[in-house]
């Protein structure tokens, strides 16, 4: 590790440009209207053919030879700013970019849109433009970035009405989902109907599918990095909306103008209204609260505190039975500039996930709880060495506590006793170092390594089995006891990350990447779609870290003066120690879970084509993905390779929005995917009065294809102009042509409408379940 660091530093220092006298230009770039710092703004010096982008905190730094240069600051949706800067010594220049829409109040095409997607070394990344997402139709009118992510190339949706997604052959638990750098363990509301991300507070969301930067780790397949807004530091404002499923309100404003600001937002479901109307005793509710305070003390010190909490509560029979789950996160950040070239971010992050189930009944009263907590300290540094080298390095310390389950009676007459599964603890030290290096005019490299030292620590008992694969007759031959902080098992993994970009011509580039990812936190689920009631487990005495190696190659080309971005990427991913479960595994509340899971291999390959139009009246994206994902797990499917549950051979998506005028905007999406592979019966037999299915091959049947079209129209009434109160109506139609998209197929003995078995009680039928028919929705948004 240290040797690597030295090599990187030497490579960086030995570049010839070092001999000249160097100065550094740095600063923060923000939105001129609300003071929000902008992430990923391109900073480019044409004379030097050199540039950089703002980091996740809106900061940029570039080291160049002395001189006077024109510097271009460009960002999608904002007017390009070109500034002439005399650089005889280090210069700090904070830039405010003007939003095109606000600047001119009409839609314009920037004279030179940016070509960041072609010039950057990063491939396999998609940025979610939240204002674009808001123009597109949404289920129940509730704007949801996860639903948008499910439509990206290389991403497969677990199914309609779910928040689970699969990236390039990875499992549903292999996505690191971050809100302001804090992990969210279950991003779903109402079992995935919506995600925990309230679109009002989202500034930026990026999905990394490959070529994953060294600063990220912990999951195999993707990083979803969601950042919330900092709050307007220029003026007070209220934003809100009333939708058919949820209502939202957000308050933001300066504490001290241009220096500090706050934002508080709340969203709550209003489904209770429907359920009340349907006269049922069942209720379902969720809420989200986001809050953030940030303080720019001076140009070298900035502080942020971001909080999130959200919860679902579902109750049956007027509260006789119910369950709920929720995530809470807290992030404290300190951005500090040691000098012009060295930027640091120190974060304290806490995250918690829990679920509860309860039945209130004199005899069957029971309470079931499960939770996990994570605390992190992150120290990240960026050093602008010279024009050709940008070094970043850091250390992340993570502690985790897993409390997989506790059941207890909640009445004195309950038949249940108290039982708790033992807690698990883990410590993770991660170090990374990375350099981005320009070699000549055409080549850009990004190379680094991440070292993860993961420890499963005590207290805890480890059972030694006489045969760990026997989940019928479980024999504990011995028990190993561990004290507090005693090491149970340590896994050390080195994760190399390498990316390369080669410019073929203006607006054309070729990119290659290789990355290794390691995952030490595993979701224990045997289903296709994880549910909040699944528990997480650290790598431990038996459970080995999952490891993935991915190579990807891509051709990037922009057309029509960067109006259209096009790319084609191909990847091959090899996954080891992926976790699956033996047939008939008991995953809930099982202290001998080690006898149920099996770790094996998975491999996936595919090609993704994407065309994106990010400017103009008509904007949108067209994507097509072909991919194949296989698994081979001992004792699963008799040890034979099988198609993964989340294999969808062909997926095509179209998203488009059209700004007719300042009053009307229209949106449309279309999605097509091959059906889900599933296990269907080969036949039937009799046992008592039951008619079980004969099961032969796993995932041997492919459900009918999924396709759907949605439309939306957004109305910004003319009377908004010149008024402080601005209202907006969003009309949407989901599933326009009322396609009965298969959600799942199950079998049963033939029954009548009321669920009574009919006939001789031996005839079977297959039932197709589909979720949403054609559904209109109306949402009213406001701002003042």
């Amino acid at each position, binding site marked *: 590790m240290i040797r690597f660091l030295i090599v990187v530093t030497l490579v960086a220092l030995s570049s010839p440009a070092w001999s000249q006298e160097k100065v550094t230009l740095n600063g923060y770039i923000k939105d001129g209207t609300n003071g929000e710092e902008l992430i990923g703004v391109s900073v480019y010096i044409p004379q030097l053919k050199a540039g950089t982008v703002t980091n996740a905190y809106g900061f940029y730094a570039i080291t160049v030879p002395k001189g006077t240069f024109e510097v271009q600051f460009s960002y999608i949706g904002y007017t390009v700013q070109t500034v002439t800067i005399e650089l005889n010594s280090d210069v700090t220049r904070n830039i405010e970019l003007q939003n095109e829409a606000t600047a001119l109040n009409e839609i314009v095409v920037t004279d030179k849109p940016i070509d960041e997607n072609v010039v950057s070394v990063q491939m396999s990344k998609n940025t979610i433009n939240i204002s674009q997402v808001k123009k597109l139709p949404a289920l129940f009118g509730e704007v949801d970035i996860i639903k948008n992510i499910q439509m990206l190339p290389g991403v497969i949706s677990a199914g309609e009405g779910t928040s689970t997604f699969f990236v390039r052959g990875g499992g549903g638990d292999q996505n690191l989902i971050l809100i302001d750098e804090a992990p969210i363990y279950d991003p779903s509301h109402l079992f995935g109907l919506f995600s925990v991300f309230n679109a009002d507070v989202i500034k930026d969301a990026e999905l990394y599918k490959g070529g994953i930067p060294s600063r990220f780790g912990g999951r195999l397949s993707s990083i979803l990095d969601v950042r919330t807004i900092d709050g307007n530091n220029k003026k007070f404002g209220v934003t809100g909306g009333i939708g058919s499923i949820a209502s939202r309100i957000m308050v933001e404003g300066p504490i001290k103008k241009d220096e500090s600001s706050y934002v508080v937002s709340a969203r709550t479901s209003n489904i209770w209204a429907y359920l009340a109307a349907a006269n049922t005793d069942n209720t379902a509710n969720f809420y989200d609260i986001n809050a953030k305070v940030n303080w720019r003390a001076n140009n070298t010190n900035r502080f942020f505190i971001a909080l999130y909490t959200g919860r679902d509560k579902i109750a049956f029979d007027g509260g006789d*039975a119910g369950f709920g789950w929720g995530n809470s996160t807290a992030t404290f950040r300190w951005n500090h500039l040691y000098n012009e070239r060295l930027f640091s971010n120190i974060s304290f992050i806490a995250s918690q996930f829990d679920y509860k189930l309860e039945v209130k009944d004199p005899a069957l009263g029971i309470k079931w709880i499960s939770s996990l907590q994570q605390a992190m300290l992150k120290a990240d540094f960026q050093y602008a060495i010279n024009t050709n080298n940008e070094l970043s390095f850091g250390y992340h310390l993570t502690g985790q506590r897993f409390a997989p389950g506790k059941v207890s009676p909640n009445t004195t007459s309950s038949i249940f006793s108290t039982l708790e599964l033992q807690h698990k603890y883990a410590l993770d030290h991660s170090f990374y170092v990375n350099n981005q290096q320009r070699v000549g005019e055409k080549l850009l490299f990004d190379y680094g390594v991440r070292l993860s030292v993961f420890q499963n620590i005590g207290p805890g008992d480890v059972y030694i089995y006489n045969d760990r694969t026997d989940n019928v007759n479980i024999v504990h031959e011995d028990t190993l006891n561990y004290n507090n902080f005693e090491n149970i098992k340590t896994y050390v993994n080195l994760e190399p990350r390498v990316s390369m970009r080669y410019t073929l011509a203006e607006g054309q580039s070729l990119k290659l990447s290789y990355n290794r990812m390691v995952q030490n936190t595993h979701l224990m689920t045997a289903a296709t779609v994880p549910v909040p009631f699944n528990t997480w487990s650290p790598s431990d005495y038996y459970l080995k870290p999952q490891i993935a190696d991915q190579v990807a190659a891509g051709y990037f080309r922009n057309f029509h003066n960067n109006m259209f971005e096009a790319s084609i990427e191909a990847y091959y991913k090899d996954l080891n120690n992926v976790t699956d479960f033996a047939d008939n595994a008991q995953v809930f509340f099982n202290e001998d879970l080690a006898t149920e899971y099996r770790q094996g291999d998975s491999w996936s390959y595919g090609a993704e084509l994407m065309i994106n139009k990010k400017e103009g009246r008509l904007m949108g994206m067209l994507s097509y993905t072909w991919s194949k994902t296989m698994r081979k797990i001992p004792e699963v499917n008799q040890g034979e390779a099988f198609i993964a549950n989340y294999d969808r051979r062909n997926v095509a998506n179209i998203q488009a929005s059209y700004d007719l005028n300042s009053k009307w905007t229209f949106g449309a999406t279309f999605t097509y995917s091959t059906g889900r592979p599933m296990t269907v019966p080969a*036949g039937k037999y009799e046992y008592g009065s039951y008619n079980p299915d004969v099961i032969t091959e796993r995932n041997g049947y492919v459900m009918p294809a999924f396709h759907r079209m949605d439309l939306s129209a957004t109305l910004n009434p003319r009377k908004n102009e010149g008024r402080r109160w601005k209202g907006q109506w969003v009309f949407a139609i989901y599933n326009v042509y009322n396609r009965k998209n298969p959600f799942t197929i199950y079998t049963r003995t033939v029954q009548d409408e009321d669920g009574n078995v009919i006939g001789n009680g031996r005839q079977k039928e*297959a039932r197709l379940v589909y979720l949403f028919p054609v559904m209109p929705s109306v949402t009213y948004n406001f701002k003042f």
Partner: protein
Amino acid sequence: MKIQRTENNMTMRKAVSSFVFSLLVIAALFFMSCEETVKLDLDDYTSAVVIEGLVTNQENYQFVKVTRTADFYDPGNTPRITNAEVTVTDDLGNVIPFVHNPSGNEDSLGIYIPETPFTGAVGRTYTLHVEVDGLLYEATDKLFPVTTMDSLNYEIDEDEQEDPEVEGRIYSLLLFTQEPQDEINYYLFKFFRNDSLSFDTDSDIYFSDDEFLAENISGVEGPVLYSQGDHARVEMFSISREGYIYYNDLSNLLNNDGGVFSPIPASPRTNLTNGALGFFQVSALDISETEIE
């Protein structure tokens, strides 16, 4: 569209995990789900022998049913195997021959009963031998003791009284027993209304382990509803761990949602050898009865 009711799932299915799972499926389909019957295009497969065997400690409560698997869309009974050689042996070396359908009853084709009556004994291990077309299928299971039901009571189920599914069928049973805390037990329950085996839902299996159970089981509501004048009978079987696992797996298979939220369907783990489906169950039995008045 359907909005399912939950109280059914809150009743006897005590295996907490399957309880959680039921809630999940309901919740998932809670808002909007429609369904319709579809025709699956299924491949041919090689049919297998199915054996359902039962030995209990009660007289005339042992049988072995030997059948074959059938096509999924076969509308009738599955094929009966009437020419099997069936014997049960115990761990003392006793051999109990079974004979095929001595009554000659059409409904009992494929069912074998002991040539001369015998009853199982607690603590004994029994092995089933079934020979079909020269292939031998075997299974072994042990007869564990079962606790006794202290009493059976009944009360009006208020929800059903308000809105009965079947007019007048508003009484539910209340079970009282003591769960021995110093041993590991597994249970299977069968509920009868006027001597006919009854369920809340046809795919229900009423079974439990004792992992979560406290000693005093008092007033647990049964899953089956009764009318005034009905005769109610509850049979409580002891089962082995293998039996518990078989019924748990079978329940997961019968109630599978197609592998979305539930695990991917799989064949239940069985004590039968040679690829036979089904199970050979050996049980002690406690029966409790009451008239609903």
